[in-house]
């Protein structure tokens, strides 16, 4: 079973590597969106410093949502998803492996770039760690919840926009706590509580979301 899961992860990473443009677009989208905000609200340093965590989090959220189209859609189109559903490994575990590979490719790069972008907003250097950590804990949760939405909207017309409508309300707690971590750190309160909550959300989502997504996949494929 471990062999099968490792096989799925390696397969997805290999596919992403051979089609790296898909990956780059998500990262570039993140960068562009973040850069749009100062253009929209003015370059006043104090204002930017205050909004930095929120802006980075909203941009990461949108980029994550954009990337969700790639989790199941391609496999559904060429029939590989069906094979996974008829495989010897429980579908929930296969989904967890796929979401993990998806996060490595679409979420982790955002986490790694975020400190650089935060500097654009003159965010205090000593707090970059909290910000990056909040994204590191939060983006997998976004991928996990998003996978449920992707599974529900598999193969539907207008799946992309519908997916956003379904998934954004569910993203709200993650956004609030995630952005709240860096904001609390910036105001001197320390972001520990939020980070711990994010960790709890990650564990909870990690345990239940793959299973819910598997149920949704079976419903969508019938």
């Amino acid at each position: 079973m471990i062999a099968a899961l490792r096989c799925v992860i390696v397969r997805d990473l290999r596919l992403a590597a051979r089609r790296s443009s898909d990956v780059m677009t998500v990262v570039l989208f993140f960068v562009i969106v973040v850069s749009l905000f100062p253009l929209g609200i003015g370059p006043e340093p104090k204002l930017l410093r205050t909004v930095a965590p929120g802006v980075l989090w909203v941009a990461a959220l949108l980029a994550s949502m954009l990337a969700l189209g790639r989790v199941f859609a391609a496999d559904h189109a060429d029939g590989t998803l069906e094979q996974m559903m008829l495989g010897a490994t429980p579908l929930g575990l296969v989904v967890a492996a796929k979401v993990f590979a998806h996060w490595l490719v679409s979420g982790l790069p955002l986490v790694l770039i975020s400190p650089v972008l935060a500097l654009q907003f003159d965010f205090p250097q000593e707090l970059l760690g909290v910000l990056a950590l909040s994204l590191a804990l939060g983006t997998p949760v976004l991928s996990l919840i998003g996978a449920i939405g992707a599974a529900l909207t598999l193969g539907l017309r207008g799946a992309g926009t519908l997916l956003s409508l379904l998934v954004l309300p569910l993203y709200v707690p993650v956004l609030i706590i995630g952005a709240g971590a860096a904001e609390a750190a910036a105001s001197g309160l320390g972001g520990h509580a939020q980070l711990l909550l994010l960790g709890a959300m990650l564990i909870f989502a990690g345990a239940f979301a793959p299973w819910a997504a598997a149920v949704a996949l079976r419903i969508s494929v019938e």
Partner: protein
Amino acid sequence: MSINWFKYSSPQTFFPLAGKLALGFGLLALLACGMGLYLGFFVAPTDAQQGEAYRIIFIHVPAAWMSMFLYVVMAFWGGIGLAFNTRLSGMMASAIAPTGALFTFIALWTGSFWGKPTWGTWWVWDARLTSELILLFLYFGFMALQASIDDPRRADRAGAVLALVGVVNVPIIYFSVKWWNTLHQGASVSLTKAPSMAATMLTGMLIMSFGFWFYSIAAVLLRARCIMLERERSADWAGQYARGAA
């Protein structure tokens, strides 16, 4: 309602029952709402702090309660449909969604009307109002998902999964929004800070809640009848009813 469930679990037998129940509950709703509004707008005393404007609470709070209650009921029927593979449960869940969304919208709209004279703005990012807004999005998501799926069976089951995931999230959303609200210089603008309840005020609100509840039952049952007719249009009983009614 301790009816023998299984007898009424097929659309054919439930259809006429739903019609009778809808009529009954509709009348009760008119009665209760009438009484509640009378109590709220004429009998209850003027509030010392907020004047007459607070009276909108008699619509706002029951509507908010209904919006949350209906979401839970919708998720419940969806869950039953998933677990026991019954067609009628899915139809009930689909029938509830628009009424739930309506009450959410009413709660938001009346919240706005309350905010303007009281706090001077049309919208406040109060924890409850913000949660209601997100609840509205959850309802819209459910309806949009069902509208996008042609196959009724897949639509019911997908909607059920979404509603169940949503129901788990609603307390999390409320909690996080409340935290967010208090963290950001705790808005002293709290619509939850209701004026200290005189007995008539509380009675008025409760009666309105019952009125809304009866209305919901009636509206949902009527909508469910339409859904039943549409889904089962190839069945004999549906054809007979349509011909009889025409």
